[in-house]
């Protein structure tokens, strides 16, 4: 994994996949659904933001665990930057979701279990960044925010992935149904959505890597 980060092919792969997603996402055929109409194509651009966010937050948590195990400041640094990129994706996910909801559900932020859960989760992670800013002692900051990051992820997953499924939600796949049932999506759409998740995740890792390297340079200069 570490040696792969030094190479560049995965960045090109991510970009290539996303170019494919743009072309196939706009040109490919989609199911004809009332209310949704052509806006069903937002599935290719809005949904992957959340999937990529979850993958990035999971990675962030892994690095927080690594930090708590060995106390290397570099692991804490990587954890923050993965969280930063994930939060950016989350903000974009909220914004794109609000635009889409305005047209299909009639208002940008309806009172929906999934949306409430997402609002709480976003606050949870904003609090993580604020928490980090409130320490002067670097070791204390790293240790306490690593613990917080692990707890935040452990709360985040049930909040967005499990609880909305126990009730009714405007989002498809909630209220007891597995996500992406046969009425929501066909195989042609899956051939764009899943690559989009991979491509966007790779792009997120790239941005994260740039920020991590910049931070490492800064700490190197401070030494």
């Amino acid at each position: 994994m570490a040696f792969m980060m030094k190479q560049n092919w995965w960045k090109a792969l991510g970009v290539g996949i996303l170019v494919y997603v743009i072309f196939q996402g706009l040109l490919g055929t989609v199911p004809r659904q009332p209310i949704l109409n052509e806006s069903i194509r937002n599935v290719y651009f809005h949904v992957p933001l959340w999937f990529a966010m979850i993958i990035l937050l999971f990675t962030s948590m892994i690095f927080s665990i690594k930090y708590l195990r060995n106390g290397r400041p570099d692991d804490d640094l990587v954890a923050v930057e993965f969280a930063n990129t994930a939060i950016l994706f989350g903000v974009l996910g909220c914004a794109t979701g609000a635009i889409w909801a305005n047209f299909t559900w009639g208002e940008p932020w309806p009172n929906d279990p999934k949306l409430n859960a997402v609002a709480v989760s976003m606050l949870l992670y904003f609090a993580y960044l604020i928490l980090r800013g409130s320490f002067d002692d670097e070791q204390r900051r790293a240790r306490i925010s690593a613990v917080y990051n692990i707890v935040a992820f452990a709360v985040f997953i049930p909040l967005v992935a499990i609880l909305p499924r126990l009730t009714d939600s405007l989002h498809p796949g909630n209220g007891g149904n597995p996500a992406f049932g046969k009425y929501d999506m066909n195989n042609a759409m899956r051939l764009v959505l899943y690559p989009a998740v991979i491509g966007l995740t790779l792009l997120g890792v790239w941005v994260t890597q740039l920020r991590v390297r910049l931070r490492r340079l800064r700490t190197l200069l401070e030494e």
Partner: protein
Amino acid sequence: MSLTALLLEGVEMADQLRADGKIWVVVAVIATVFMGIVLYLVRLDRQISQLEKDLSQKKSVTINS
């Protein structure tokens, strides 16, 4: 034709936009924006790589001297 299929035929999609080929205008614009952002990231990546090289050289010089 079943009733649901008949109903779905009536769902309004951007068929005319596609028939005219104007959808390509949208595809081209979005692809250009995306490639512009990617080029920006590539340049940023190169600049950071250069900085890493410069700094590691400087470090080794100070250690050796």
